[in-house]
């Protein structure tokens, strides 16, 4: 049976539809489990760096502040809310409402990516790069601190970029995929694909909320602790 036929629920009993829906959600949960393993490696690498090089992280915190990333965090939280409200609208038979909410999700995801781009540019301006870099003596992040051992801090700050960019950029790539997926859901939704069975929206929602959960943890671990 084709995916379209399943989503429309044609020629399937209620039990078959329910089983098919559960299978699709289970498949997504299994995929998310593999994502947990990948993100854990990046987060683990960052946590170890955080424990061993506290001065470098302190320089990052003091130098950049959390205003931009806090705004970005709120944007992602609201996008997750818009996502689940879109699913709710479809469950209530309101296709137009669903299209509006999922559009908002896609827009907020795009705004989040723009915010991340701005942040990366700011970081590049203070010599935080993906590759291990030699930080100059007059680096403004170092000047934000009252350091006893400037050389050690310069060395540590040089290694900060890799630990920072890998998890955040990998997360950003997931947001980008999510935005494209949202556009696909909108396109299919306009054709009435989810009118009788919105499991396709629910599966996309699992992905989008997972991306939100990862950010909730990254925000605290990288920007606040």
């Amino acid at each position, binding site marked *: 049976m084709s995916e379209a036929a399943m989503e429309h629920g044609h020629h399937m009993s209620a039990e078959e539809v329910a089983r098919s829906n559960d299978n699709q959600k289970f498949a997504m949960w299994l995929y998310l489990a593999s994502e947990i393993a990948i993100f854990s490696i990046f987060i683990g690498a960052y946590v170890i760096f955080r424990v061993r090089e506290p001065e470098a992280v302190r320089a990052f915190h003091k130098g950049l502040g959390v205003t931009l990333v806090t705004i970005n965090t709120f944007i992602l939280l609201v996008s997750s809310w818009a996502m689940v409200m879109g699913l709710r609208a479809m469950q209530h038979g309101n296709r137009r409402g669903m299209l509006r909410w999922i559009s908002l999700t896609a827009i907020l995801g795009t705004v989040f990516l723009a915010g991340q781009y701005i942040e990366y540019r700011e970081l590049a301006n203070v010599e935080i790069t993906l590759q291990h870099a030699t930080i100059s003596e007059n680096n403004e992040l170092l000047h934000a601190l009252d350091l006893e051992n400037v050389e050690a801090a310069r060395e540590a700050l040089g290694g900060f970029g890799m630990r920072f960019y890998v998890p955040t950029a990998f997360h950003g790539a997931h947001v980008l995929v999510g935005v494209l997926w949202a556009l696909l859901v909108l396109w299919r939704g306009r054709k009435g694909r989810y009118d009788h069975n919105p499991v396709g929206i629910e599966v996309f*929602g699992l992905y989008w909320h997972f991306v939100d959960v990862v950010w909730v*943890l990254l925000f605290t671990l990288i920007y606040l*602790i």
Partner: protein
Amino acid sequence: MTEETQNTQEQSEHTPAHRGHNDELTLFGQTMPIYTWVLIALGVLTLIEVFIGNNSDSLRTFGSIVLLVLAFAKAALVVLFYMHLRTDSRIFAVVLLLPLVVSVLSVLFLVTVPAGY
């Protein structure tokens, strides 16, 4: 009633298409979808986190522990309510928790390994 109509009617009672009609919650005299209350809770917890994070120099280890607890509380809210783990099959929770527990234990172990080992 044709077979197809019957199927559609059965479906409408059992599939997620019609789940969630009673998903509103009244708090402080305000009735809103439970998802909106969760968003408000997430926002408040985030503001508390940012406040603690900005004062973490004075709070040190205690502040870090509180921040981690708040982050996991926020993650739990999203998973339970937005991802519907509160009401969905328990097997989904197992699929989530198994790699999560292994990952957390692995990271905790690696943190204790001395540098240069």
